[in-house]
C-alpha cells in the first residue's frame, strides 16, 4: 500500500469558549486509498480528542459529513487524502463547533417546500390513485427515482456562486422541486415555488453538477424549469395523459 505523510490544517472554533477561531495543524501517516474522514477519525482517536466533526454512514449515503477541503466543498468520507489538506466547515452555514455546522435553516427550507406529492385539488393526503399500481413508465420512474437519490448534503449549495450573492435558496431545493414536478402523482405549483425560491437567480454555471457527490445535476433540473417557464413543456406526460 502506498503510504505517505499528510498534513491536515483544521479549523477550530468553540462559540461557547469565548476564544476566536484558529487553525490547528496535524501530521499523520496515511495510505493512498484513505479518505479525509479517516484523517479526522485518526486525529480524534490519537491526537485531539476534542475535535468536533460529523459523520454517520461513511460511505457517501447520508450526506452529513460535508466539509470544505482546500477550498472545495466535498463529502469527507468520499474525498481522497492529499499530502496537504486544509479542512474547514461547510460554508455558508453557521458553525456549531469546529467542523460541525448547523443545518436547521437548510432543513427548514426543505420543510417549507412541502416536498411530498400534492393530489389534484390541493389535498395533501396521500394520493388515492397510487393504490393498485398507478401508471408510471419505467424510464420516467427511473428519472424520478434518481433525483430522489439526492443526499441533501448541501455541497452544491456551498459551491453555488449565486447562493452567496443572491436571494437563491440553492440548487438542491430546485432539484427536489423538479423531482416532484416530474412525479405523476404531484399536482403542486412547483414552478411557482421554484421561482419564489430564486430560480431565475441561477447563473447556469454548472458548478453544482460538477461537485455533486451523488452524480446528479441540479443545473439540468433548473434548466428544465426555465424551459417549462418559457415554452410550457414538461419532459414527461402525467400518467393520466395530461401534459402539464
Amino acid at each position: 500500500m502506498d503510504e505517505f505523510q499528510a498534513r491536515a490544517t483544521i479549523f477550530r472554533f468553540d462559540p461557547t469558549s469565548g476564544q476566536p477561531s484558529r487553525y490547528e495543524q496535524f501530521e499523520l501517516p496515511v495510505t493512498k486509498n484513505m479518505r479525509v474522514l479517516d484523517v479526522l477519525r485518526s486525529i480524534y482517536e490519537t491526537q485531539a480528542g476534542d475535535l468536533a466533526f460529523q459523520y454517520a454512514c461513511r460511505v457517501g449515503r447520508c450526506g452529513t459529513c460535508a466539509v470544505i477541503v482546500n477550498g472545495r466543498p466535498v463529502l469527507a468520507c468520499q474525498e481522497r487524502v492529499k499530502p496537504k489538506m486544509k479542512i474547514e466547515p461547510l460554508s455558508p452555514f453557521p458553525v456549531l463547533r469546529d467542523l460541525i455546522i448547523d443545518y436547521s435553516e437548510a432543513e427548514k427550507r426543505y420543510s417549507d417546500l412541502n416536498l411530498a406529492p400534492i393530489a389534484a385539488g390541493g389535498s395533501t393526503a396521500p394520493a388515492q390513485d397510487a393504490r393498485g399500481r398507478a401508471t408510471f413508465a419505467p424510464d420516467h420512474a427511473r428519472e424520478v427515482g434518481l433525483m430522489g437519490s439526492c443526499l441533501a448534503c448541501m455541497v452544491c449549495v456551498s459551491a453555488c456562486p449565486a447562493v452567496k450573492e443572491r436571494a437563491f435558496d440553492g440548487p438542491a431545493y430546485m432539484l427536489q422541486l423538479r423531482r416532484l414536478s416530474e412525479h405523476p402523482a404531484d399536482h403542486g405549483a412547483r414552478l411557482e415555488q421554484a421561482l419564489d425560491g430564486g430560480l431565475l437567480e441561477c447563473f447556469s454555471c454548472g458548478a453544482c453538477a460538477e461537485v455533486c457527490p451523488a452524480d446528479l445535476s441540479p443545473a439540468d433540473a433548473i434548466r428544465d424549469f426555465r424551459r417549462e417557464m418559457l415554452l410550457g413543456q414538461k419532459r414527461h406526460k402525467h400518467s393520466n395523459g395530461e401534459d402539464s
Partner: protein
Amino acid sequence: MPVPNEPRVERTDVLVIGTGGAGLRAAIEAHDRGAQVTLVAKGLARATHTRMSGGRYNVVSGIVADDHTDIFFQDTVAAGARINNQLLVRILVDEALERAYDLEAYGLAWERKTATDYLVVASGGGTRLRTIGSFDEGIGVSEVMLHQVFRRQVRLREHHMLVDLIGDDQNRIVGALVLDLAHGQWIIYDCGAVVIATGGASQLYATNSGPVFNTGDGIAVAYRAGAELVDIEFMQFIPIAFAYPPTAKGYTLTEPQHYGMRHYEVHGEPGKLFNSLGERFILKHDSVQREGGTRDILARAIMLEILEGRGSAEGGVWLEPDPKVFESFLRERPIYVKRILENYGEQEARFLSRFQVMPSALYTTGGIRIDSTGHTTLPGLFAAGEAAGGVHGANRLGGSSMPDIQVFGRRAGMAAAQEALDCVDRPAPDIRLGLERAAKLDSALHRSEGLRPPALKRKIQDLMWQNVGLVRNGQGLADALRTFAEFREQILPHLSISSQTRVMNREWMEAIELENLLALGECMASAALTRTETRGSHYRQDFPEGNDGDWVANLYVCRDDGRPKVKKRPVVSLTQSHQSHESLKGARNG
C-alpha cells in the same frame, strides 16, 4: 468553566426515538391518530441505517403468478430456522403490500418493468421472485418519509440522544432522559408513550456495515429499564462487504446472487466466490442454492475459509461477478456501481474482474421483545424495526427489513398514540432519578485520566468479532463475559475525556454509548453461551449441528441484579391464542 445546565422538562404525548424507517413511520402514524409527537435523532435525521440500505423490499404484490403470502411466510420461517414469532411473521407478509403502496403515495418511485408492473427480482433465501426496489434505494425511502414528517410539522429534535427511560413505581414508562448533544443540555421528557426505533448494534463489531450511531442504545436502555429482549444471540452478518478502503470497509455489497443471473431466475447462477486456492468453496456447504443461499450459511462459509487461512491478505475472499448482468446492474443499482468504481476500480465496476469481499456485521436480528401491536414487556414502552426482535428468528431474509420497519413502525405508532391518548391522567415522571443519572454522567466530563472512549470501543469491537461473531465456542463466550465484566467494573467508571466542552463532545457521547455496548455485548454473549447448538447465524464450533429436539425455542433476556438472566420459552406459533402468551399489553416482567 461553563456551569452545567439544569435539566429542562418537556411534555409530549408520544416520544419516538430514532429517525430510520421505523421511527419515521411510527411518528407519522401516531401523529395521524391525534397524538402530539416528538421525534428525536441522536445525530442528524438522515444519519440512519435505513439511509444506507439498498432499499430492497420483499412483498407479495400479485405480479409474480406463483407467489402467495403463505409462501412468503414459509420462506421467512425457513430462513429464520423455525424460531420466528409466527404471529409477527403473518402480519409482516400480510401487511407488506399496503405499506409499499403507502411509500408510493409518499412519493417513492418503485422501479417498473412495465408502466403498470413493478420490477420484481430475487433475494437471498426466497423461493420466489418478490423483491421490489427504487433507484434511490434507502436514501429515497428516508427522504420521502422525512417529507411526510415535515408536512405534518412533527416536532423533530436532532442531536438528541436517549440516555435512559424513566418509569414510575410500577415500572410503567412515563418519561425519558435525553441529552441534547449540541448544547450539552439535559432534557426530561414527560410523555404518555415511548417508541424505541433506534436501530441495531452493528457498532459492536470491528467490521460492520452500519452507521456509527448504531450502538444499540435503544435496546440497552430498554433492557436497563427492565424490558425483555428476544433472540439477542443472533447477529446477521452480510456475507459480502467491501474489504477496503477503511471508510468503506464492512459496507454491504448485498448478496452474491445479485451479481449473476440468479438475480432474475430462481435457478440461475449467482456471482461466484473463490478462496486463495481458487476453489469455489460454497459447494462444500450448499451445492443446491450455492452462492444464492441464505446469508447465515454464506457468511459462515466465507468466515471459515478466512479463519482456515485460505483468505486474502486483507481478510477477504474473491467474488467473481457475471459480466452479462453488468448492464442491468448498472441500470438498477447505479449507486452501487459508483461505490465499486471508486473503491475498487473500473474493471471491477464493469464486472470484468474479481474483487475482494468479506463478511461484516449488518443486522441485529434479535432485540426488544414485542407483540403484534408493538408493545414491549414494559407498559408505556413500544419498539419497532431493527431495535425490536422476534420477526426474523435466527436469520433474516434479504429484503425483509424494509417491510418490517414500515409494518411494525406503523403498528407501534398506532399503539403508542392509543396509549398516550388513553392515559390522560398519569403522574409526571419522578425527575430525581433522571437528575441523578444526569449528574453522574456530567461528572464523566471532568475526568482526565484513564482510557479514552475510542480505545475502549476498539477493545469491545475486537473482542466481539473474535468471540461473539460468526464463529463461537463456549470458552470464547465465557472469556468474553469475564472481560466485559472487567471492562464494566474497572475501565468504564474511569474513562477519561479530553475536553469539558458541552457542545458536540464526541468523547462524552461515546462514553455514554459504551455503557450500552457493554450491556448488549453481555446479553449477546450470555444468550449465545446458553444456546448449545448451531442455528441460523449463531454458529457454535463446540455444537456445530442444529438440535431441533431441544432448541426450536427462543431465548429471552432480562436484567436481574445488573446481569443478564436468560430464559428459554417455546416458539410463538400461529396455533397459540392471543390471550395466553402473545399479548404483552398490561403484562409485567415474567
